[in-house]
Structure formats: structure tokens, C-alpha cells
């Protein structure tokens, strides 16, 4: 059943994907009206799917890589919704919706059997690690989305020929604020998430192997994250330079995520 609900959610997210793809070429008032309700509905189905998975596997910490991708999609969507509620803009959806779709798509097409969590894993710490890291990821991603929108809006303003499609983007300072606030909010989560992760790892393996790809990349991502926060806070970097940094952090995050498949200590399959 979880996979069925997930596929229904995927269908809903497809509307958002369409919205995002068309947003840059032309405006469709129908899609504008439909996108947000469809995405909300998708969230509901995804939530149902994840809850069922938890009930079926009997554990709160999701133990398959695809389940966690689905969870990440849901967290990103939730972050998007928070932004929507505060700023009343769906524009970050242009970047957020495709990612949510891709994550859900991967989760919905291949499903692995549930795995038993190794007994040595501390469930509480593990849960804290996952929850906080995911919020950190979502915030980072939103900030990345905002910096892309910032570039779009900045270019449109500099070109002095504001395109009709971009008319609905929020004001430059609003976009900037969305990016900066999610960055600031995400940073402590990311930091604490990494701390929780290292506690779990230490408890499990007795030591931290800094050369393990997962740990190395996670630290790299965290470092880039910190550089963005610092330059933004200290020198007010935004626009192009902030977008480069955010892109760097995103690439590091994606690699760190994919390291799940290579790392010897951070994996979902028991070794």
C-alpha cells in the first residue's frame, strides 16, 4: 500500500512539475490556480504513504534509502509551504517542485524491502540525526532556489525589459530574505544533525573515519554552508556570488547524499 499512495502523490507532484517547467516560458492561469492545491494533496498522500511504511516496518527511523528520499521530498515540500504561508509566493516552486518530483519519482519506482535496524543503533540519536539533517537539507535547498530566483529577477531588472513571465516573481529583497532566512534557520539544524550523526557513528564504530566519503563530504558541505552564512552576514554577499556558493553547497549536498551508496559506515544495507 505505501507504494500506491506514493504513486498517487507522484501524480499530484507532476502538476507542480508542469507548473515549474511552464513558468519560465509562459503563464497559465489554470496551472497557477491548480498547482498549489495539487501539491498540498500530494503532501497528504506522501504523508499517508510514509506513515504506513512506519507502521508496516514497526520503526520510526526509515531504513530504506527510497523511503528516506520520499521523506526528504516531504520535508522540502513542508519548508516550501512555510515560505508560502509567510510570503504568499509560489515562485520558489519553480525550483522546488522539480526536485520534489524527482525525489518522489525515485522513491516510487523502486522499492526495497525493509531492513532491520542494527541493534547497536541508538534509535533516539538516529532519529534526531535524520530529522535535523533533512530540515537542514530542505533549508539549504530553499536557499539555493531563492538564489536562482534572485538571479532571474536581477537579470530581468538589469535588462530593463522586464519579461511578462517574471512579473509574478517576488521583489528582489523578498527573495533575498527568503534565501537568507532559510539559510539561517537551516544552519543550526544541519550542524546539530551532523553532531547527532557523529555520535551515532562513534557509538556504533567506536571512532570517526574522516576519510570515509560520507563523513568527508558531509563536512565539506557543512563548511561551504558556513562560508555562505558568514559571507552573507559579514559582507552581505548576495546575487551572483551567493548563487555560486549556494550551488557549491548544493553540489556538495548531492554528492554527500549519493555517498550513501558508497560509504562503508553510513548505509542502509547492513554490512
Amino acid at each position, binding site marked *: 500500500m505505501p507504494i500506491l499512495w506514493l504513486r498517487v502523490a507522484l501524480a499530484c507532484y507532476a502538476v507542480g512539475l508542469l507548473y515549474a517547467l511552464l513558468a519560465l516560458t509562459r503563464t497559465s492561469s489554470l496551472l497557477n490556480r491548480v498547482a498549489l492545491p495539487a501539491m498540498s494533496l500530494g503532501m497528504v498522500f506522501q504523508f499517508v504513504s510514509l506513515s504506513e511504511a512506519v507502521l508496516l516496518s514497526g520503526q520510526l527511523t526509515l531504513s530504506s534509502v527510497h523511503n528516506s528520499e520520499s521523506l526528504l521530498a516531504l520535508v522540502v515540500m513542508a519548508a516550501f509551504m512555510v515560505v508560502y504561508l509567510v510570503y504568499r509566493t509560489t515562485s520558489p516552486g519553480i525550483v522546488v517542485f522539480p526536485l520534489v518530483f524527482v525525489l518522489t519519482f525515485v522513491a516510487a519506482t523502486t522499492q526495497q524491502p525493509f531492513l532491520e535496524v542494527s541493534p547497536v543503533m541508538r534509535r533516539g540519536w538516529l532519529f534526531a540525526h535524520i530529522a535535523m539533517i533533512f530540515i537542514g537539507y530542505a533549508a539549504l535547498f530553499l536557499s539555493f532556489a531563492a538564489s536562482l530566483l534572485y538571479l532571474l*529577477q*536581477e537579470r530581468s*531588472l*538589469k535588462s*530593463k*525589459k*522586464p519579461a*511578462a513571465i517574471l512579473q509574478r516573481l*517576488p*521583489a*528582489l*529583497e*523578498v527573495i533575498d530574505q527568503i534565501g537568507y532566512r532559510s539559510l539561517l534557520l537551516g544552519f543550526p539544524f544541519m550542524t546539530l544533525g551532523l553532531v547527532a550523526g557523529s555520535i551515532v557513528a562513534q557509538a556504533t564504530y567506536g571512532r570517526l573515519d574522516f576519510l570515509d566519503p560520507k563523513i568527508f563530504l558531509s563536512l565539506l558541505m557543512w563548511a561551504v554552508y558556513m562560508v555562505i552564512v558568514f559571507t552573507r552576514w559579514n*559582507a*552581505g*554577499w*548576495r*546575487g*551572483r*556570488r551567493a548563487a555560486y556558493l549556494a550551488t557549491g553547497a548544493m553540489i556538495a549536498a548531492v554528492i554527500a547524499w549519493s555517498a550513501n551508496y558508497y560509504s562503508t559506515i553510513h548505509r542502509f544495507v547492513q554490512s
Partner: protein
Amino acid sequence: MKFQLIGVNHRTAPVEVRERLAIPESQLPEALRHLAGHPGVDEGIILSTCNRVEVLAQTKNGTVDLRAFLRDYFQLNPSDYEPHLYEYSESDAVRHLFRVTSSLDSMVVGEPQILGQVKEAYASARAVGAVHSHLDLLLTRAFAVAKRVRTETAVGSSAVSVASVAVELAKKIFGSLQGKHVYLVGAGKMSELAARHLIAHGAESIFVANRTYDRAEQMAARFGGKAILFEQLYETCDRADIVITSTGAPHAIFRREHGELFLARRKNRPMFFIDIAVPRDVDPEMNRLDGIFVYDIDDLQQAVSSHVADRRKEAERAEAIITVEVERFQVRLQTLDVVPTIVSLQDHLETIRQAEIDRVRGRLGALSPEQELAVDALTRGIISKIMHTPISTLKTAVREAEATTVVDVVRRLFDLHDTSPQEKELQGRRKEDKKAAKLGGGESGAET
């Protein structure tokens, strides 16, 4: 009767030509009198704004040489401005006037000022008596058309003037203008207007820097702002989020290095430069800096027109309204032409009828009121039956090209000469006299 229009506007003539042809308000009455006195001109009106100078005349018969009027009045070298002139007559002139009044011909399509300017021109022309009948009708119609265009289309609905476009751009950059600081460099009228708009939308404080400190103080006082010595411009300018420049300086005041300095002091918070000075006060290089947005007067106007281009459909709808209205007005004009004919025709027949009744009354003897009514109804009935077709033909002929010929034929057939009310009165008296002569033996015949 004929409408003729001649003029220059922002598209056909550069500002050097327009400013030489412009007629200041104080000299307008004199110019209008001059126009009304020009041979062949019956009525006239002159519209002179910063974007156009137009002369519209209603001629008595045939065409009038309006170029000769311009030569006479301005005493300029004709070759300086004549290549820029456009001329319209009849329905084209009507259409042009409707388009101008509806702000479709404006530099900023849909801007509302033009209607007021045409109204002022109309008031001046009326005041000196240059406009009384047909032009009056035309102008009144033009105002109605402008109103219709404004209510039925979105042409004039949103940000169209340069100042409001500046506000809209500022909002695109800053979101809300609440708490934003505006810096005026140079105390011109245009920058004052822009500042007023920005403040109306929530911008907070105003700084004014001007080469003459007194003027800066005056302007600052008007906004409750702060005057700043021009020498302190660069030290203080980074406090502003929005800078409006309008000085008469021959070279750029703000260059790239200033922009870099401001950004560093502002921690890269964005700045919006609105440069309405010609020559420009802000080096275009500044626009290359991340976080600095420079719009000069041409950019603003371009933004205005791209705004309007988005609403090209609305402009098309407005043009359609104009077309309909021009046709309607033409019909109305021609009906005006035929109405006096119909009226005098009816008067003519009524006189005949009355005369005939009076003539036979004696022979009929005393009539009862019913019989009186019957005779009246009978004679009226005959006349209206006979005249029904000719009159409706006259009315429908109006819509066709041969209107004037039909009208002429009718006038000649029935020997109708009266055109003006005075003449009608005269003729009426003449007829009465004739009547009296027939009845009474001609004692008053000598008067005719």
C-alpha cells in the same frame, strides 16, 4: 463644413522643433484670435503641450491653408519645421483628435494628463469665441470618447506615467517601500513628482542635495526631509535606497567607483538609481555592479512602453472604439446638415397648409369643433402622407456619399433658402406678409 488639422508631435518632431512651435498659455488667446481671423477659418482651437502642437480648424467652404497660418503666426523659417508637420482633414482629423484626447497618441499611452490639456485648450478657445458650433460638438464628443476608452478598456488603468513606473520598479526591487530612504540629487519638478509618488507608496525619509543649498532646503521642507550640502553628497548617499538624480551637470556625477564605495558601505544592500537628467547624471557602467540598478529616462520610458505593449490588446480595443465613434460622429454631422433642410421643408409645407385652410374658411362658414378638427386632420394627413417618403429618403441619404446632392435637390425643388434661424425668421415674416396681402388686400405689401 470641413475639419482640418495640422501639427507636430513627439514622433514627428524632435524637441528642438516642438519647443519653437510651442505657444505658452499667456499667448494662447492671441494666437486663437489670429487663427479665427485667418481667411476661411470659421472655428479654431490650438493644443500646445510639451509633446505636441496642433491646430484644428473648421472651415467655412473648401480648404484652408493652415501652413500659411503657421508661417504668419510664428514668423519662423518654414523649412525648419515643415518637414515635421502632419495634416489631416475630415474624418481623419476627427480620428486624430479622438486618439489624442483618449491618450492613444501620447508618448506614454494611457497617461491621463492629455485629457486635461485638451480641456484647457477647449476652454481657452471658447473664452475667445474661437469655438462655438461644430468644433464645440466635436470637442464635446472627443471628451466623451476619451471617457469611454478609459472606462471600457484598461489602457489608462495601471502604471503609465514615468513616475509611477519608477515606483513600480522600486517595488520590484525592494518589495515594500516602507522605511526606504529616498535621495534627491537636484531639485527639479520631475524628481519632485517621482519623490511624491514614492512617498505616497510608503517611502520614509527624503534627503535633498542641490547645488544651490536654498533650493534644497525649500524642497526638503516641502517633504519634511533633510537638506544636504552638495559637497557631502558622496559621504551621505549610501544612506539612500533610492536615488533620483536630475541635475544639469554636463558629466556623470555618479561613476562606477562611487557605486563600489556605496555598496561596500551598505554591505551590498541593493540601490536603485533613477536618472532623469539629460545628459545623464549616472554613468551607465554603474548598472554593471551587482546590486545597483540604474534606470535613465529612456529606460523608464521603455519600461512604460513595454508595459503598454503587454496591453496591446487593450490599445486595439481602444482603437476599435475610436473607429466606431468616428463613424458615429460623421453620421451625426451629416444629420446636422440635413436636419435644417427637413425642418425648413416642414415649415414650408405647414405654411402652405395654414394658408389654404384660411383661404377656404370663409366659404365653409362656421364649423363645429369636431369639423374643425376633421379639416385639420385631413390636411395634415395629406401632407404627411405625401412627404413621408421624401423625408425618410433625406434621412437615409445622410449615410451615403450623395447626401449633399439630395439635400441640394430638395432645397431647389421646394425653393428653400433659409439656413440660419435669423433668416428663417425673416422668411417667416415675409410669408406672413404675403399671406396678409392675399387675404387683406395688400396694405402691408410695401414692406416686403
